[in-house]
Protein backbone atom coordinates (compact mmCIF):
# COMPACT_ATOMS: atom_id res chain seq x y z
CA UNK A 1 0.00 0.00 0.00
CA UNK A 2 1.33 3.38 -0.93
CA UNK A 3 -0.80 5.67 1.16
CA UNK A 4 -0.04 8.94 -0.63
CA UNK A 5 1.69 8.42 -3.96
CA UNK A 6 2.78 12.03 -4.50
CA UNK A 7 6.13 13.71 -4.09
CA UNK A 8 4.75 17.24 -3.71
CA UNK A 9 1.49 18.90 -2.71
CA UNK A 10 1.04 21.57 -5.36
CA UNK A 11 -2.72 21.73 -5.50
CA UNK A 12 -5.97 19.86 -5.04
CA UNK A 13 -6.64 19.62 -8.77
CA UNK A 14 -4.12 16.78 -9.41
CA UNK A 15 -5.29 14.71 -6.42
CA UNK A 16 -7.58 11.71 -6.59
CA UNK A 17 -10.45 11.38 -4.11
CA UNK A 18 -8.50 8.51 -2.47
CA UNK A 19 -5.50 10.84 -1.91
CA UNK A 20 -7.76 13.40 -0.24
CA UNK A 21 -9.26 10.65 1.91
CA UNK A 22 -5.78 9.57 3.04
CA UNK A 23 -4.79 13.11 4.04
CA UNK A 24 -8.03 13.61 5.98
CA UNK A 25 -7.78 10.22 7.71
CA UNK A 26 -4.16 10.89 8.63
CA UNK A 27 -5.02 14.34 9.96
CA UNK A 28 -7.82 12.82 12.06
CA UNK A 29 -5.32 10.38 13.54
CA UNK A 30 -2.68 13.02 14.18
CA UNK A 31 -5.01 15.60 15.74
CA UNK A 32 -4.94 13.74 19.01
CA UNK A 33 -1.23 14.60 19.43
CA UNK A 34 -2.23 18.26 19.90
CA UNK A 35 -4.22 17.34 23.03
CA UNK A 36 -1.37 15.50 24.70
CA UNK A 37 0.52 16.89 27.66
CA UNK A 38 3.73 16.66 25.60
CA UNK A 39 2.79 17.83 22.12
CA UNK A 40 5.75 16.33 20.36
CA UNK A 41 6.36 13.07 18.55
CA UNK A 42 9.68 12.01 17.02
CA UNK A 43 8.45 10.91 13.63
CA UNK A 44 10.25 13.56 11.51
CA UNK A 45 13.38 13.83 13.63
CA UNK A 46 16.32 14.80 11.41
CA UNK A 47 14.15 16.23 8.60
CA UNK A 48 14.55 19.88 7.64
CA UNK A 49 11.73 22.07 6.37
CA UNK A 50 12.14 25.58 4.97
CA UNK A 51 9.08 27.85 5.10
CA UNK A 52 9.55 30.37 2.30
CA UNK A 53 6.90 33.06 2.51
CA UNK A 54 6.85 35.71 -0.20
CA UNK A 55 3.53 37.05 1.07
CA UNK A 56 2.35 38.09 4.50
CA UNK A 57 0.78 35.27 6.47
CA UNK A 58 0.04 34.69 10.12
CA UNK A 59 -2.26 31.70 10.24
CA UNK A 60 -0.79 29.47 7.54
CA UNK A 61 2.81 30.12 8.44
CA UNK A 62 2.40 29.62 12.18
CA UNK A 63 0.25 26.57 11.49
CA UNK A 64 3.02 24.99 9.40
CA UNK A 65 5.61 25.94 12.00
CA UNK A 66 3.63 24.35 14.83
CA UNK A 67 3.04 21.22 12.73
CA UNK A 68 6.76 20.95 11.99
CA UNK A 69 7.69 21.37 15.65
CA UNK A 70 5.12 18.85 16.87
CA UNK A 71 6.52 16.26 14.45
CA UNK A 72 10.13 17.10 15.52
CA UNK A 73 11.26 18.39 12.13
CA UNK A 74 13.88 21.15 12.13
CA UNK A 75 12.38 24.20 10.51
CA UNK A 76 13.56 27.52 9.21
CA UNK A 77 11.15 30.30 8.29
CA UNK A 78 12.17 32.90 5.76
CA UNK A 79 10.16 36.02 5.19
CA UNK A 80 11.13 37.78 1.98
CA UNK A 81 10.79 41.16 3.72
CA UNK A 82 14.02 40.34 5.57
CA UNK A 83 15.79 38.21 2.97
CA UNK A 84 18.00 38.56 -0.10
CA UNK A 85 14.86 38.86 -2.22
CA UNK A 86 14.94 42.51 -1.22
CA UNK A 87 18.32 42.72 -2.92
CA UNK A 88 16.91 41.46 -6.20
CA UNK A 89 17.50 37.72 -5.92
CA UNK A 90 15.22 35.65 -8.15
CA UNK A 91 12.98 32.86 -6.91
CA UNK A 92 15.15 30.30 -8.69
CA UNK A 93 18.37 31.65 -7.15
CA UNK A 94 16.80 31.71 -3.71
CA UNK A 95 15.55 28.16 -4.19
CA UNK A 96 18.89 26.90 -5.52
CA UNK A 97 20.72 28.41 -2.55
CA UNK A 98 18.28 26.88 -0.13
CA UNK A 99 18.53 23.60 -2.01
CA UNK A 100 22.29 23.64 -1.50
CA UNK A 101 21.57 23.47 2.23
CA UNK A 102 19.73 20.22 1.52
CA UNK A 103 16.30 20.70 3.08
CA UNK A 104 13.82 17.84 2.82
CA UNK A 105 10.88 20.12 2.13
CA UNK A 106 10.16 23.68 1.04
CA UNK A 107 6.81 25.19 1.96
CA UNK A 108 6.22 28.17 -0.29
CA UNK A 109 3.70 30.97 -0.44
CA UNK A 110 4.04 33.25 -3.43
CA UNK A 111 1.97 35.97 -5.07
CA UNK A 112 2.50 34.40 -8.50
CA UNK A 113 0.39 31.43 -9.55
CA UNK A 114 2.62 28.50 -10.45
CA UNK A 115 5.60 29.46 -8.28
CA UNK A 116 5.46 26.14 -6.33
CA UNK A 117 5.29 24.20 -9.62
CA UNK A 118 8.36 26.10 -10.82
CA UNK A 119 10.25 25.13 -7.64
CA UNK A 120 9.12 21.52 -7.99
CA UNK A 121 10.73 21.40 -11.44
CA UNK A 122 14.04 22.78 -10.21
CA UNK A 123 14.47 21.40 -6.68
CA UNK A 124 14.99 17.96 -5.23
CA UNK A 125 13.07 18.83 -2.06
CA UNK A 126 9.40 18.05 -1.60
CA UNK A 127 7.40 21.21 -2.32
CA UNK A 128 4.21 22.21 -0.54
CA UNK A 129 2.07 24.99 -1.92
CA UNK A 130 1.02 27.29 0.93
CA UNK A 131 -0.88 29.55 -1.47
CA UNK A 132 0.14 30.67 -4.97
CA UNK A 133 -1.43 33.83 -6.29
CA UNK A 134 -5.09 33.35 -7.09
CA UNK A 135 -4.48 29.72 -8.04
CA UNK A 136 -4.59 27.20 -5.19
CA UNK A 137 -4.27 26.88 -1.42
CA UNK A 138 -4.50 23.11 -0.99
CA UNK A 139 -3.93 22.82 2.77
CA UNK A 140 -6.70 25.37 3.41
CA UNK A 141 -9.15 23.31 1.35
CA UNK A 142 -8.07 20.15 3.17
CA UNK A 143 -8.56 21.72 6.59
CA UNK A 144 -11.97 23.02 5.53
CA UNK A 145 -12.90 19.53 4.38
CA UNK A 146 -11.64 18.03 7.64
CA UNK A 147 -13.77 20.50 9.60
CA UNK A 148 -16.85 19.68 7.52
CA UNK A 149 -16.26 15.95 7.76
CA UNK A 150 -15.78 16.05 11.52
CA UNK A 151 -19.03 17.99 12.03
CA UNK A 152 -21.19 16.40 9.35
CA UNK A 153 -19.66 12.93 9.23
CA UNK A 154 -19.33 13.08 5.46
CA UNK A 155 -18.59 15.30 2.47
CA UNK A 156 -20.62 13.46 -0.15
CA UNK A 157 -24.01 15.00 -0.73
CA UNK A 158 -23.36 18.20 1.23
CA UNK A 159 -24.56 21.47 -0.29
CA UNK A 160 -21.88 24.09 0.19
CA UNK A 161 -22.16 27.78 -0.67
CA UNK A 162 -18.93 29.67 -1.33
CA UNK A 163 -19.57 33.39 -1.00
CA UNK A 164 -17.30 36.40 -1.55
CA UNK A 165 -14.31 37.40 -3.65
CA UNK A 166 -14.12 34.46 -6.06
CA UNK A 167 -11.91 36.34 -8.49
CA UNK A 168 -8.87 36.64 -6.24
CA UNK A 169 -9.45 33.60 -4.06
CA UNK A 170 -7.15 30.62 -4.21
CA UNK A 171 -9.16 29.16 -1.33
CA UNK A 172 -12.30 29.10 -3.47
CA UNK A 173 -10.57 27.26 -6.30
CA UNK A 174 -9.04 24.60 -4.07
CA UNK A 175 -12.31 24.11 -2.21
CA UNK A 176 -14.24 23.89 -5.42
CA UNK A 177 -11.95 21.14 -6.70
CA UNK A 178 -11.95 19.26 -3.43
CA UNK A 179 -15.65 19.39 -2.69
CA UNK A 180 -16.58 18.43 -6.24
CA UNK A 181 -14.15 15.48 -6.20
CA UNK A 182 -15.61 14.29 -2.90
CA UNK A 183 -19.20 14.39 -4.09
CA UNK A 184 -20.44 17.62 -2.48
CA UNK A 185 -22.41 20.13 -4.51
CA UNK A 186 -21.09 23.67 -4.58
CA UNK A 187 -22.85 26.92 -5.39
CA UNK A 188 -20.78 30.05 -5.88
CA UNK A 189 -21.88 33.58 -5.07
CA UNK A 190 -20.15 36.89 -5.78
CA UNK A 191 -20.79 40.24 -7.42
CA UNK A 192 -20.34 40.00 -11.21
CA UNK A 193 -17.09 41.98 -10.97
CA UNK A 194 -15.60 39.32 -8.70
CA UNK A 195 -16.56 36.24 -10.71
CA UNK A 196 -13.65 34.81 -12.72
CA UNK A 197 -14.57 34.08 -16.34
CA UNK A 198 -15.36 30.44 -17.05
CA UNK A 199 -15.90 29.38 -13.44
CA UNK A 200 -19.57 28.72 -14.16
CA UNK A 201 -18.40 25.61 -16.02
CA UNK A 202 -17.28 24.16 -12.69
CA UNK A 203 -20.21 25.11 -10.46
CA UNK A 204 -23.41 27.18 -10.63
CA UNK A 205 -22.91 30.87 -9.93
CA UNK A 206 -25.46 33.26 -8.49
CA UNK A 207 -25.35 36.97 -7.69
CA UNK A 208 -27.95 36.58 -4.96
CA UNK A 209 -26.60 35.42 -1.61
CA UNK A 210 -30.09 34.49 -0.44
CA UNK A 211 -30.29 31.99 -3.27
CA UNK A 212 -26.79 30.63 -2.58
CA UNK A 213 -27.34 29.94 1.12
CA UNK A 214 -30.86 28.50 0.71
CA UNK A 215 -30.78 25.01 2.21
CA UNK A 216 -26.98 25.00 2.51
CA UNK A 217 -25.21 22.55 4.84
CA UNK A 218 -22.22 24.88 5.00
CA UNK A 219 -21.36 28.41 3.98
CA UNK A 220 -17.76 29.30 3.22
CA UNK A 221 -17.22 33.02 3.39
CA UNK A 222 -14.24 34.42 1.50
CA UNK A 223 -12.26 37.46 2.53
CA UNK A 224 -12.82 40.69 0.66
CA UNK A 225 -9.48 42.38 0.39
CA UNK A 226 -10.04 45.97 1.36
CA UNK A 227 -7.09 47.08 -0.76
CA UNK A 228 -8.91 45.84 -3.84
CA UNK A 229 -12.07 47.75 -3.01
CA UNK A 230 -10.50 50.83 -4.57
CA UNK A 231 -9.84 49.02 -7.85
CA UNK A 232 -13.34 49.50 -9.18
CA UNK A 233 -14.53 46.03 -8.24
CA UNK A 234 -16.99 47.28 -5.65
CA UNK A 235 -18.64 50.61 -4.86
CA UNK A 236 -17.92 50.38 -1.12
CA UNK A 237 -17.49 47.88 1.73
CA UNK A 238 -20.85 48.96 3.11
CA UNK A 239 -22.62 48.23 -0.15
CA UNK A 240 -20.90 44.87 -0.40
CA UNK A 241 -22.08 44.01 3.11
CA UNK A 242 -25.62 45.06 2.27
CA UNK A 243 -25.75 42.87 -0.85
CA UNK A 244 -23.38 40.00 -0.07
CA UNK A 245 -22.48 40.08 3.63
CA UNK A 246 -23.42 37.01 5.65
CA UNK A 247 -25.89 38.21 8.24
CA UNK A 248 -27.93 36.28 10.81
CA UNK A 249 -31.03 36.84 8.72
CA UNK A 250 -29.40 35.27 5.67
CA UNK A 251 -28.01 32.37 7.70
CA UNK A 252 -31.58 31.47 8.70
CA UNK A 253 -32.25 30.48 5.08
CA UNK A 254 -29.70 27.69 5.35
CA UNK A 255 -30.22 24.36 7.12
CA UNK A 256 -30.72 24.48 10.89
CA UNK A 257 -27.36 22.82 11.50
CA UNK A 258 -25.47 24.90 8.95
CA UNK A 259 -21.73 25.43 9.46
CA UNK A 260 -20.08 28.79 8.82
CA UNK A 261 -16.46 28.70 7.66
CA UNK A 262 -14.02 31.50 6.94
CA UNK A 263 -10.33 31.07 6.05
CA UNK A 264 -9.38 34.28 7.86
CA UNK A 265 -8.43 36.96 8.42
CA UNK A 266 -12.02 38.20 8.66
CA UNK A 267 -13.33 41.62 7.74
CA UNK A 268 -16.14 41.90 10.24
CA UNK A 269 -18.98 43.97 8.86
CA UNK A 270 -17.75 43.56 5.29
CA UNK A 271 -18.15 39.92 4.25
CA UNK A 272 -19.44 38.58 7.57
CA UNK A 273 -21.39 40.03 10.47
CA UNK A 274 -19.77 39.73 13.88
CA UNK A 275 -22.83 37.93 15.30
CA UNK A 276 -22.37 35.25 12.64
CA UNK A 277 -18.59 35.00 13.01
CA UNK A 278 -18.97 34.47 16.76
CA UNK A 279 -22.32 32.68 16.59
CA UNK A 280 -23.29 29.08 17.29
CA UNK A 281 -22.83 27.90 13.68
CA UNK A 282 -19.30 29.25 13.33
CA UNK A 283 -16.50 26.67 13.13
CA UNK A 284 -13.85 29.23 12.30
CA UNK A 285 -11.64 28.38 15.28
CA UNK A 286 -12.06 24.64 14.62
CA UNK A 287 -10.63 25.40 11.18
CA UNK A 288 -7.52 26.88 12.79
CA UNK A 289 -6.97 23.81 14.98
CA UNK A 290 -7.63 21.49 12.05
CA UNK A 291 -5.13 23.52 10.03
CA UNK A 292 -2.32 22.27 12.26
CA UNK A 293 -3.56 18.68 11.99
CA UNK A 294 -3.80 18.83 8.20
CA UNK A 295 -0.33 20.31 7.87
CA UNK A 296 1.02 17.61 10.18
CA UNK A 297 -0.61 15.04 7.89
CA UNK A 298 0.93 16.59 4.77
CA UNK A 299 4.40 16.67 6.37
CA UNK A 300 3.99 13.11 7.59
CA UNK A 301 2.82 11.78 4.24
CA UNK A 302 5.40 13.61 2.12
CA UNK A 303 8.42 13.22 4.38
CA UNK A 304 7.90 9.91 6.09
CA UNK A 305 8.75 7.13 3.68
CA UNK A 306 6.31 6.67 0.80
CA UNK A 307 6.66 7.98 -2.69
CA UNK A 308 8.18 11.29 -1.70
CA UNK A 309 11.03 9.97 0.38
CA UNK A 310 11.68 7.05 -1.88
CA UNK A 311 12.18 9.04 -5.01
Amino acid at each position, binding site marked *: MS*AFPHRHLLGIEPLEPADIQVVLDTADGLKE*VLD*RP*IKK*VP*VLRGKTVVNLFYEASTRTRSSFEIAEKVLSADSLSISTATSSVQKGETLLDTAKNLEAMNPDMIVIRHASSGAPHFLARHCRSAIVNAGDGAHEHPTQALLDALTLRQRKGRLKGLRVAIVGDLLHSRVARSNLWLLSKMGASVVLCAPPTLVPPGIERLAPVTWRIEEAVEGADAIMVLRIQRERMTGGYLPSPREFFNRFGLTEERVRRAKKDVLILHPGPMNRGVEIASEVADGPYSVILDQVTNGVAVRMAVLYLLLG*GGAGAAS
Partner: protein
Amino acid sequence: MAGPSPQIEKAVLMDAGRVARTLARMAHEILERHPDMRGVVLVGVRSRGVPLARRLAGLLREASGVEPAVGALDISLYRDDFTMIASQPITKGTEIPFSIDGRTVIVVDDVLFTGRTVRAALDQLIDFGRPDRIELAVLVDRGHRELPIRADYAGRSLATARQEIVQVLLREEDGRDGVLLLERRARRAQRGGARRGRARGRRGK
Protein backbone atom coordinates in the same frame (compact mmCIF):
# COMPACT_ATOMS: atom_id res chain seq x y z
CA MET B 1 4.67 -1.77 -8.55
CA ALA B 2 5.38 -4.85 -6.44
CA GLY B 3 2.51 -5.86 -4.18
CA PRO B 4 2.84 -7.66 -0.87
CA SER B 5 4.79 -10.91 -1.00
CA PRO B 6 2.60 -13.95 -1.45
CA GLN B 7 2.09 -15.94 1.74
CA ILE B 8 1.21 -19.56 2.27
CA GLU B 9 -0.39 -20.97 5.40
CA LYS B 10 1.81 -23.57 7.08
CA ALA B 11 -0.04 -24.32 10.28
CA VAL B 12 -2.83 -23.29 12.63
CA LEU B 13 -1.00 -22.57 15.87
CA MET B 14 -4.05 -21.70 17.97
CA ASP B 15 -7.76 -22.09 17.34
CA ALA B 16 -10.46 -19.90 18.87
CA GLY B 17 -10.78 -22.10 21.98
CA ARG B 18 -7.05 -22.04 22.58
CA VAL B 19 -6.95 -18.25 22.21
CA ALA B 20 -9.72 -17.91 24.81
CA ARG B 21 -8.01 -20.30 27.26
CA THR B 22 -4.68 -18.58 26.77
CA LEU B 23 -6.14 -15.17 27.52
CA ALA B 24 -7.87 -16.53 30.63
CA ARG B 25 -4.55 -17.92 31.84
CA MET B 26 -2.79 -14.64 31.14
CA ALA B 27 -5.46 -12.77 33.12
CA HIS B 28 -4.84 -15.05 36.10
CA GLU B 29 -1.07 -14.55 35.82
CA ILE B 30 -1.66 -10.79 35.91
CA LEU B 31 -3.90 -11.20 38.98
CA GLU B 32 -1.31 -13.34 40.74
CA ARG B 33 1.22 -10.57 40.37
CA HIS B 34 -1.26 -7.76 41.07
CA PRO B 35 -3.88 -8.94 43.57
CA ASP B 36 -5.05 -5.35 43.91
CA MET B 37 -6.02 -4.30 40.39
CA ARG B 38 -6.88 -0.74 41.33
CA GLY B 39 -3.47 0.59 40.38
CA VAL B 40 -3.29 -1.29 37.07
CA VAL B 41 -4.24 -0.03 33.61
CA LEU B 42 -3.98 -1.80 30.26
CA VAL B 43 -2.80 -0.13 27.07
CA GLY B 44 -3.20 -2.01 23.80
CA VAL B 45 -0.94 -1.43 20.83
CA ARG B 46 -2.99 -0.78 17.70
CA SER B 47 -4.45 -2.55 16.09
CA ARG B 48 -4.84 -6.05 17.56
CA GLY B 49 -3.38 -5.19 20.94
CA VAL B 50 -6.44 -3.05 21.69
CA PRO B 51 -9.12 -5.78 21.47
CA LEU B 52 -6.77 -8.11 23.34
CA ALA B 53 -6.42 -5.51 26.12
CA ARG B 54 -10.21 -5.11 26.25
CA ARG B 55 -10.69 -8.86 26.52
CA LEU B 56 -8.09 -9.12 29.27
CA ALA B 57 -9.78 -6.26 31.13
CA GLY B 58 -13.10 -8.14 30.94
CA LEU B 59 -11.49 -11.33 32.23
CA LEU B 60 -9.81 -9.42 35.05
CA ARG B 61 -13.17 -7.92 36.03
CA GLU B 62 -14.75 -11.37 36.14
CA ALA B 63 -11.94 -12.68 38.30
CA SER B 64 -11.32 -9.75 40.61
CA GLY B 65 -14.37 -7.50 40.42
CA VAL B 66 -12.20 -4.60 39.29
CA GLU B 67 -12.01 -3.75 35.59
CA PRO B 68 -8.83 -1.92 34.72
CA ALA B 69 -9.05 1.05 32.37
CA VAL B 70 -7.99 0.36 28.77
CA GLY B 71 -6.16 2.74 26.46
CA ALA B 72 -4.90 2.47 22.90
CA LEU B 73 -1.44 3.29 21.54
CA ASP B 74 -0.71 4.04 17.91
CA ILE B 75 3.05 3.68 17.68
CA SER B 76 3.44 4.70 14.05
CA LEU B 77 4.77 8.16 15.01
CA TYR B 78 7.47 6.55 17.18
CA ARG B 79 8.80 3.92 14.79
CA ASP B 80 12.57 4.00 14.37
CA ASP B 81 12.31 2.49 10.89
CA PHE B 82 9.85 5.08 9.63
CA THR B 83 12.01 6.46 6.86
CA MET B 84 13.02 2.98 5.70
CA ILE B 85 9.57 1.57 5.10
CA ALA B 86 8.02 1.69 1.67
CA SER B 87 4.71 3.26 2.63
CA GLN B 88 3.33 5.22 5.50
CA PRO B 89 0.94 3.65 7.95
CA ILE B 90 -2.25 5.60 8.44
CA THR B 91 -2.19 6.82 12.01
CA LYS B 92 -5.32 5.93 13.93
CA GLY B 93 -4.55 7.95 17.01
CA THR B 94 -3.54 7.23 20.58
CA GLU B 95 -6.24 7.26 23.25
CA ILE B 96 -5.16 7.25 26.86
CA PRO B 97 -8.07 9.00 28.60
CA PHE B 98 -6.59 8.50 32.10
CA SER B 99 -3.43 9.39 33.98
CA ILE B 100 -0.69 6.81 33.95
CA ASP B 101 1.29 8.59 36.67
CA GLY B 102 2.07 6.22 39.54
CA ARG B 103 0.18 3.33 37.92
CA THR B 104 1.26 -0.05 36.65
CA VAL B 105 0.76 0.04 32.90
CA ILE B 106 0.49 -3.29 31.13
CA VAL B 107 1.24 -2.89 27.44
CA VAL B 108 -0.69 -5.49 25.42
CA ASP B 109 0.19 -6.61 21.91
CA ASP B 110 -0.56 -9.61 19.76
CA VAL B 111 2.94 -10.72 18.71
CA LEU B 112 6.37 -9.95 20.20
CA PHE B 113 8.99 -10.17 17.47
CA THR B 114 12.01 -7.84 17.15
CA GLY B 115 10.97 -5.69 20.10
CA ARG B 116 10.94 -2.45 18.10
CA THR B 117 7.20 -1.97 18.44
CA VAL B 118 7.48 -2.33 22.20
CA ARG B 119 10.38 0.14 22.29
CA ALA B 120 8.22 2.63 20.39
CA ALA B 121 5.34 1.99 22.80
CA LEU B 122 7.63 2.62 25.79
CA ASP B 123 8.87 5.88 24.26
CA GLN B 124 5.33 7.02 23.70
CA LEU B 125 4.13 6.05 27.19
CA ILE B 126 6.93 8.07 28.75
CA ASP B 127 5.56 11.11 26.87
CA PHE B 128 2.24 10.62 28.63
CA GLY B 129 3.50 10.48 32.20
CA ARG B 130 5.55 8.55 34.69
CA PRO B 131 4.15 5.12 35.47
CA ASP B 132 5.48 3.27 38.53
CA ARG B 133 6.02 0.23 36.38
CA ILE B 134 5.48 -0.90 32.81
CA GLU B 135 4.88 -4.56 32.01
CA LEU B 136 4.35 -6.34 28.72
CA ALA B 137 1.71 -8.91 27.82
CA VAL B 138 1.68 -10.61 24.41
CA LEU B 139 -0.42 -13.40 23.00
CA VAL B 140 2.54 -14.89 21.09
CA ASP B 141 6.28 -14.45 21.63
CA ARG B 142 7.99 -15.61 18.44
CA GLY B 143 11.57 -14.67 19.26
CA HIS B 144 14.12 -12.91 16.99
CA ARG B 145 14.61 -9.98 19.36
CA GLU B 146 16.75 -7.07 18.18
CA LEU B 147 16.43 -5.17 21.46
CA PRO B 148 16.74 -6.26 25.10
CA ILE B 149 13.00 -6.58 25.67
CA ARG B 150 11.06 -9.48 27.18
CA ALA B 151 7.42 -10.20 27.87
CA ASP B 152 6.15 -10.41 31.45
CA TYR B 153 3.14 -12.39 30.25
CA ALA B 154 3.38 -14.47 27.08
CA GLY B 155 0.41 -16.57 26.01
CA ARG B 156 2.57 -18.82 23.93
CA SER B 157 6.28 -18.85 23.09
CA LEU B 158 7.19 -20.20 19.68
CA ALA B 159 10.43 -20.96 17.90
CA THR B 160 9.93 -19.55 14.42
CA ALA B 161 12.06 -19.04 11.37
CA ARG B 162 12.77 -15.45 10.43
CA GLN B 163 10.92 -15.61 7.13
CA GLU B 164 7.81 -17.02 8.77
CA ILE B 165 4.90 -14.81 9.75
CA VAL B 166 2.78 -15.27 12.85
CA GLN B 167 -0.66 -13.88 12.14
CA VAL B 168 -3.09 -13.33 14.98
CA LEU B 169 -6.73 -13.18 13.97
CA LEU B 170 -9.28 -11.62 16.31
CA ARG B 171 -13.03 -11.54 15.81
CA GLU B 172 -13.10 -7.77 16.48
CA GLU B 173 -10.72 -7.12 13.57
CA ASP B 174 -10.85 -10.25 11.42
CA GLY B 175 -14.19 -11.89 12.16
CA ARG B 176 -12.67 -14.93 13.86
CA ASP B 177 -10.10 -15.91 16.48
CA GLY B 178 -6.96 -17.89 15.76
CA VAL B 179 -3.20 -17.80 15.30
CA LEU B 180 -1.70 -18.88 12.00
CA LEU B 181 1.85 -19.61 10.91
CA LEU B 182 2.45 -18.29 7.40
CA GLU B 183 5.48 -18.31 5.19
CA ARG B 184 6.39 -15.49 2.89
CA ARG B 185 7.41 -16.74 -0.53
CA ALA B 186 10.59 -14.87 -1.33
CA ARG B 187 9.92 -12.55 -4.24
CA ARG B 188 13.68 -12.09 -4.48
CA ALA B 189 14.05 -15.72 -5.40
CA GLN B 190 11.45 -15.31 -8.12
CA ARG B 191 13.15 -12.16 -9.39
CA GLY B 192 16.55 -13.84 -9.10
CA GLY B 193 15.21 -16.71 -11.19
CA ALA B 194 13.95 -14.26 -13.78
CA ARG B 195 17.30 -12.44 -13.80
CA ARG B 196 19.17 -15.71 -14.18
CA GLY B 197 16.81 -16.61 -17.01
CA ARG B 198 17.46 -13.31 -18.76
CA ALA B 199 21.23 -13.71 -18.22
CA ARG B 200 21.09 -17.18 -19.71
CA GLY B 201 19.17 -15.71 -22.62
CA ARG B 202 21.82 -13.03 -23.11
CA ARG B 203 24.63 -15.55 -22.84
CA GLY B 204 22.83 -17.69 -25.37
CA LYS B 205 22.80 -14.90 -27.94
